[in-house]
């Protein structure tokens, strides 16, 4: 390496000023010795010698402006190297600066057509498991279902532990972890200080080391303190490490509006987390789905965001009593088959959608109702197949409209089933405002059953 080249200070730098030579011809230099100083409009840099040798030539005088990156600026010969070897590449016949292979390749790439983007792999969800004939169905609350799911997984795998605020002694701020401390002890059911950013990061680190943390956020509103660790550390880790380091863990807690708790405690993060590759995002509605999907989430080798809903904790549903009830992640559930219009929702939105469906069916509208259950990977196939049949789509969610789950579904349906649509896709969402406190305003801000009915009537041209 006898030639010293004009270095780039950043990938965008093309030329700079050779401000000063610190060495002169004849000087002996060794690794790390400063040879010259260069300048651009935003930075200065000392050019250091990487090898030992003697400065035999200075090719660019100090004070020269506009020296191209990778142009030879000096020759340093190591013991035994010949001057002719060094001079060859800078001969008069080759006045253009020699380019490093990649810099040259990048320039070529700028003018060449971009490489084709390989097709994204398609996620193929599994169907729900068949239940044994005559299986006992037990009525329980969503709260009990979540509690059972965690207890069963704690029993099954000693690497699973629960941490969060008030999960142990207090028995859970919303009693989801009730009784777990008593059965599993304080080593595995861990009360944390109020320190979301810190304990989320701590749990991610524990997951890197092979544990399977279940992190409870008292509500997802507080998890905004921790969102850097959820996204930058957990979600991106597998990719950034070339597949080496996993983060098998669950972040869970109540999401969305509760009642009368104001703007900072009433936000739906479904769309936020569903945006992020590397995360799995689950938002169940029924008790059975809550149990089967939380068990699946705890067993998943990936970081899972599990969005519960405070209002739904007390609602009941039938849960099959089988030994190990695990549901597939990424599979929507068709809650009601129908032919006239497709209504898609998830979590709390399903309550509005279900009640609206009952009324619409009574009025003679054959609604197909789909519960997404998982938001990433999003089972759009089920939605698109349905829309191909009904020609109409209404989405229902509590979150804000812009960039929401409904917006995403509308885009996907337009891309893949445009010709099947008989009416514009219509969204029923939370209003585009921070959640107000006053009872009347809060009611107005949330979606409701009448809005779903109105939307269905509009797309079926019944209004």
């Amino acid at each position, binding site marked *: 390496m006898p030639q010293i*080249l*004009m*270095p780039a*200070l*950043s990938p965008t*730098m093309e030329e700079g000023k050779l401000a000063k030579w610190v060495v002169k011809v004849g000087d002996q230099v060794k*690794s*790390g010795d400063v040879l010259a100083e260069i300048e651009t409009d935003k*930075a200065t*840099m000392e*050019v*250091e010698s*990487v090898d030992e040798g003697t400065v035999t030539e200075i090719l660019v005088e100090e004070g020269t402006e506009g020296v191209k*990156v*990778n142009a030879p600026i000096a020759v340093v010969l190591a013991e035994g190297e010949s001057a002719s070897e060094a001079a060859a590449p800078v001969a008069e016949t080759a006045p253009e600066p020699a380019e*490093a*292979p*990649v810099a040259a390749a*990048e320039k070529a790439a700028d003018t060449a057509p971009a490489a*084709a*983007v*390989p097709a*994204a792999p398609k996620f193929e969800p599994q169907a729900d498991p068949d239940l044994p004939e005559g299986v006992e169905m037990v009525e329980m609350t969503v709260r009990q279902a979540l509690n059972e799911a965690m207890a069963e997984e704690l029993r099954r795998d000693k690497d699973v*532990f629960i941490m969060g605020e008030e999960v142990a002694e207090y028995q859970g701020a919303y009693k989801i972890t009730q009784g777990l401390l008593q059965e599993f002890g304080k080593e595995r059911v861990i009360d*944390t*200080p109020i*320190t979301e*950013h*810190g*304990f*989320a*990061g*701590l*749990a*991610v*680190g*524990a*997951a*890197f*080391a*092979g*544990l399977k943390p279940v992190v409870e956020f008292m509500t997802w509103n507080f998890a905004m303190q921790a969102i*850097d*660790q959820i996204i*930058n*550390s957990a979600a991106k880790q*597998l*990719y*950034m*490490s*070339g597949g*080496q*380091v*996993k983060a098998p863990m669950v972040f869970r807690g109540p999401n969305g509006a509760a009642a009368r708790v104001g703007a900072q405690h009433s936000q739906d993060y479904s769309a936020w987390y569903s945006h992020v590759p*590397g995360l*799995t995002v689950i938002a169940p509605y029924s008790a059975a789905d809550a149990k089967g999907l939380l068990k699946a989430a705890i*067993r998943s*080798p*990936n970081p899972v965001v599990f969005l519960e809903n405070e209002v739904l904790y007390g609602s009941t549903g039938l849960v099959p009593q089988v030994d190990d009830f695990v549901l597939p*992640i990424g599979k929507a559930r068709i809650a009601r088959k129908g032919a006239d219009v497709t209504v898609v929702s998830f979590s709390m939105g399903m309550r509005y959608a279900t009640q609206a469906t009952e009324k619409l069916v009574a009025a003679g509208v054959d609604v197909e109702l789909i519960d997404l259950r998982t938001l990433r990977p999003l089972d759009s196939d089920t939605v698109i197949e349905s829309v191909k049949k009904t020609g109409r789509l209404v989405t229902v969610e509590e979150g804000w409209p812009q960039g929401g789950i409904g917006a995403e579904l509308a885009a996907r349906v337009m891309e893949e089933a445009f010709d099947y649509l008989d009416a514009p896709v219509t969204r029923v969402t939370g209003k585009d405002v921070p959640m107000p406190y006053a009872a009347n305003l809060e009611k107005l801000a949330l979606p409701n059953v009448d809005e779903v009915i109105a939307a269905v009537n509009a797309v079926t041209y019944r209004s």
Partner: protein
Amino acid sequence: MARKATATKAKTQPNVPQFTQEQELEAFREMLLIRRFEEKAGQMYGMGLIGGFCHLYIGQEAVVTGITMASEKGKDAQITGYRDHGHMLVMGLDPKGVMAELTGRQGGLSKGKGGSMHMFSNEHRFYGGNGIVGAQASLGTGLAFASKYTGDGSVSITYFGDGAANQGQVYESFNMAKLWNLPVVYIIENNKYAMGTSTERSSATTDFSMRGASFNIPGEQVDGMDVRMVYDAAQRAIEHARSGKGPYILEMLTYRYRGHSMSDPAKYRSKDEVTKYRQERDPIEQVRTRLIEGGSITEEELKKIETDIRAVVTEAADFATNDPEPDASELWTDITIKA
């Protein structure tokens, strides 16, 4: 009267611990490998072979070398921020894989998908390579949590800089680490500047070894330019953590010779300051001088070591230059694991 902090500031040993010749040579080799590797990386960056950000460790070599010498390789976990090349080399990760990651090639440690700030090794228990300043403090505390949970006897060695020391989650982590007595040693690499902001301009108190005082975490200030002092302090700190007494803080007083990253205005500190450190405190020259003055090693023998290290670095650079870029299909791999 204000209550006195219960954490006492441990004193740096008045007597400089002595290294055996074997230790001196090990330290010399490791530090020189980092130095030569980083110089080559700087050169390759200048040639456009390395993109984006590139934060060199030149000047700080004694820190990671002394600490790693005091740790149990393959058992103790290490995690750091974005200035991570030196940590990986000393922990035994393949220099070819590190350099090829810097050039974004398929043979890079992260298949070219991570870059300078994102390299990892489960085998060597190196957990990055983290680009968000301060995030590694919580992650490293989690590595210590896992050690305590499984009882595997490992210690988490968690590095961050004087800049990160002002991040909130560092204190959230200190609190939990002491609350649960987790086996973690926090290494605060104080190189005096967070990018271009000196500690005096960023920090209400600049003795970072005392930052754990309100959590009752002992701390020491250590001459981070002398690998013997680093090693000695690290032994104490690691033993403290491994024996179940909880976290320990070592503030390493160190210095980076190069800019924060490759693009650096070099306006925030004087040339004299940099020159003074390089000429009077250089960690590698200190060892070289001791070895030569000790009389048992000749210049020729050290030259031989240098030649060998140069060959390793040249091999890494050649590999990183010629290895192909990752296949386009890698765009879609390693996003999630198929359950």
